[in-house]
């Protein structure tokens, strides 16, 4: 029954509409409570910005894909080395660090919850094993369904209820959290050497289009009453002129959930490109932002690009092949049986490269042009756009026009003719940054019901205390202080325990894995469905009975049970 009292904290908590009040926060047993008497520990947070723990709603930190990034880029391990110190393990790596490296660096920035953006269900064990060694954060895993043959068959048959049953079985078998579609249909077509250019192209071997996959998946997702919506990586990523495809996709999304969004569209920066080739490549962030502003049922994350070395990794195999043809560096390509595929290549984003400079500007434009910060989440699609350690710089860029202009001057000189960024005056406020880094994620992922993203009685005591005095800091001018302040917390608190103090992590946080278990009626229980079992045992290299991830892989975990409407 450990108790903790944080005194005089300057709190911004957008979910509770608290915008900069000095207050005390009491914690008992890992939860926030009304008051504690004789607390075991007292923290004086006088003059320090106190926010709910950060949530990253799209990052790649664990799993086979990340691990393959590690072993195909041994040179990455030469950066970011730290030796063992106190309770901290040795770490290494910059864009694809060790699990402890990820965990410590996120914790240092005040992040307490992470969503792994793409987990192939067949390779879920590896993801969960790495989650266990990401000790400072609660982890969740989006589960890939873009090329799942049982799901595609159900969509072709027009049987959305069966599709929902299949999603339910896979999610609970893989101990996943949400439904992820990566280039729906395209990754599947890549298995046959093809790709799809947009949502109306047919898919080999099935009589359906990506659009049908997206819409049916959204319907099935809502039948299961999952906390999160469908999490979509649109078709045609990273190609000049792909913004039309993104707009068409958004236009076709039905609004069928009144509690939260119906679609989470991820790393939209990579989907907001104009032009017909790399020569006339330009930003179409304004068109995309206008479309998002009109559609309250869509939430996006920016997928900001920052300059420097990184590793791109995605289940979008054909896109990585295109990148390989641009860079001629090393490339990995991977096919996952009945489910999906993936690709990885290392890249360097350069300021003097016009395309890279435009990509950088597009991410910022999206964040500034989408009016509602609740529907535009700050993320770099770590490590695809940049490693997450760049988040403080992104925040400073969004909060300071002066810093943006200063950075802009160092870019390729033609950038200004291709982007709208220099004309945008908006500077985000403290509240908006708080929304875009934790509250919006908590709402979009449906985690508010599970006590995340806010600081009132009953919530999980995940708290980030930054050494930033909001009253004396003008973010528009003191952007260096913003970067330093958001880079290293004074205290990061996870379930009521201080896990990171000024960058030094102090103990193994009692983290957990969150996973969903939708309860469906026996008619849609795939573990008893003869056709499913037969198909599974015939086409997978794993027996169906051996496929589900056992709970022993998870350690401490939270099962999010839902009642499906089928």
């Amino acid at each position, binding site marked *: 029954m450990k108790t903790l009292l944080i005194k005089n904290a300057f709190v911004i908590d957008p979910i509770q509409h608290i915008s900069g009040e000095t207050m005390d926060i009491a914690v008992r047993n890992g939860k926030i409570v009304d008051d504690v008497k004789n607390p075991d520990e007292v923290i004086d947070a006088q003059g320090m910005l106190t926010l709910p723990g950060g949530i990253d709603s799209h990052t790649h930190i664990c799993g086979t894909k990340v691990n393959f990034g590690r072993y*195909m*880029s*041994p*040179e*990455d391990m*030469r950066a970011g080395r730290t030796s*063992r110190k106190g309770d901290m393990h040795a770490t290494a790596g910059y864009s694809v660090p060790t699990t402890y490296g990820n965990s410590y660096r996120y914790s240092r920035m005040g992040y307490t919850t992470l969503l792994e953006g793409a987990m192939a269900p067949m390779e879920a064990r590896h993801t969960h094993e790495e989650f266990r060694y990401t000790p400072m954060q609660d982890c969740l895993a989006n589960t890939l369904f873009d090329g799942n043959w049982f799901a595609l068959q159900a969509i072709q048959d027009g049987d959305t209820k069966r599709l929902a049953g299949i999603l339910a079985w896979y999610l609970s078998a893989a101990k996943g959290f949400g439904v992820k579609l990566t280039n729906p249909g395209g990754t599947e077509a890549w298995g046959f050497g093809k790709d799809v250019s947009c949502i109306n192209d047919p898919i080999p071997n099935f009589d359906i289009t990506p659009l049908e996959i997206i819409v049916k998946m959204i319907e099935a997702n809502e039948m299961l009453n999952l906390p999160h919506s469908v999490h979509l990586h649109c078709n045609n990523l990273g190609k000049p002129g792909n913004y039309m495809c993104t707009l068409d996709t958004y236009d076709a999304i039905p609004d069928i959930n009144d509690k939260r969004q119906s679609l989470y569209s991820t790393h939209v920066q990579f989907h907001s490109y104009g032009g017909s080739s790399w020569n006339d490549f330009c930003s179409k962030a304004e068109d995309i932002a206008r479309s998002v502003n009109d559609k309250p049922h869509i939430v996006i994350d920016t997928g900001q690009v920052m300059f420097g070395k990184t590793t791109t990794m995605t289940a979008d195999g054909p896109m990585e092949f295109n990148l390989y043809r641009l860079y001629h*560096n090393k490339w990995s390509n991977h096919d996952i049986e009945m489910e999906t595929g993936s690709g990885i290549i290392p890249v360097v984003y350069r300021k003097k490269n016009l395309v890279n400079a435009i990509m950088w500007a597009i991410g910022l434009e999206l964040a500034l042009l989408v009016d509602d910060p609740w529907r535009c989440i700050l993320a770099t699609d770590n490590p695809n756009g940049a490693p997450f350690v760049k988040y403080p710089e992104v925040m400073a860029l969004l909060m300071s026009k002066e810093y943006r202009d200063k950075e802009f001057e160092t870019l390729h000189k033609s950038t200004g003719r291709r982007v709208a960024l220099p004309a945008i005056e908006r500077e985000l406020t403290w509240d908006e940054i708080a929304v875009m880094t934790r509250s919006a994620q908590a709402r979009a992922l449906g985690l508010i019901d599970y006590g995340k993203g806010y600081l009132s009685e009953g919530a999980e005591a995940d708290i980030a205390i930054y050494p930033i005095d909001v009253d004396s800091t003008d973010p528009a001018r003191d952007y260096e202080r913003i970067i330093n302040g958001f880079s290293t917390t004074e205290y990061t608190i996870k379930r009521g325990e201080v896990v990171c103090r000024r960058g030094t992590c102090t103990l193994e946080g009692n983290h957990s894995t969150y996973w969903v278990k939708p309860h469906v009626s026996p008619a849609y229980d795939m573990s008893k469905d003869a056709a499913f079992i037969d198909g599974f045992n015939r086409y997978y290299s794993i027996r169906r009975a051996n496929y589900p991830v056992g709970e022993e892989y998870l350690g401490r975990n939270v099962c999010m049970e839902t009642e499906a409407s089928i």
Partner: protein
Amino acid sequence: MMKVILEVKERHKPNLPIEAECITPKNFLDPEREFHVWKGNKELDITDIFHVRKDGTAKSAEQVEITIRGDSSHIKRVGEYMDGGKILIEGDIGMHCGNFMSAGLIEINGNADSWLGREMHGGKILCHGDAMDYAGSGYRGEKQGMRGGLIEIMGDAGDFAGETMAGGEIIIHGNAGDMPGVDIKDGRLTIMGDCSRPCGNMSGGECRIFGTAYDMLPTFRNEGLTAIDSVQITRFSGDYMSRGLGTIYVANCKYMD
């Protein structure tokens, strides 16, 4: 002029490697400096491993001469980031000798272990004995190996000599092992003896083999006979798996059966 003599003490387990990247001429300029070396995860003082003798004074690294005596075959990273002066090794030396060095001279009277002069930028390494694998190469995953300077090996070299080499010169007076100059981008690699499968994926630079190249790769094009220092030699261009901008001169070559 400063002379530093480091004599390796008798060690209970002489095969345990010691990481001694602090041994560079520049570091001895500061009389206050403490020298630490690593044995596994234990940090030791340099006097735990070496008898240290310092004579004279020096104002710049160029005036410092370090002599390493005794069984130094498991002392690693000697001369890392060296930027001037001289290191003389009387016996053998461990892995990663002369990593990233930019100037100065390292002379090894015995043999060198792997990764001799990896990613070096300048200066000279003279090895009177043999060198093991990866002399003058880049480390795992690195795109550019040696970028400048000279490595001269009087004996044989192991496999992958000059891997991803991007400048400078390597001269091997004996034989080289398998795949010398693989991924070479620039610079010159000279092998006086034999080797096998030279310069796979070569995208630039030059390789000269005065002995026999066994298992010559079929992705190089024979450009006919020429002469270097009045030696009859065949010129090849390639590797056409890459852009074919490199050149190999081979005195004798044999293709795989």
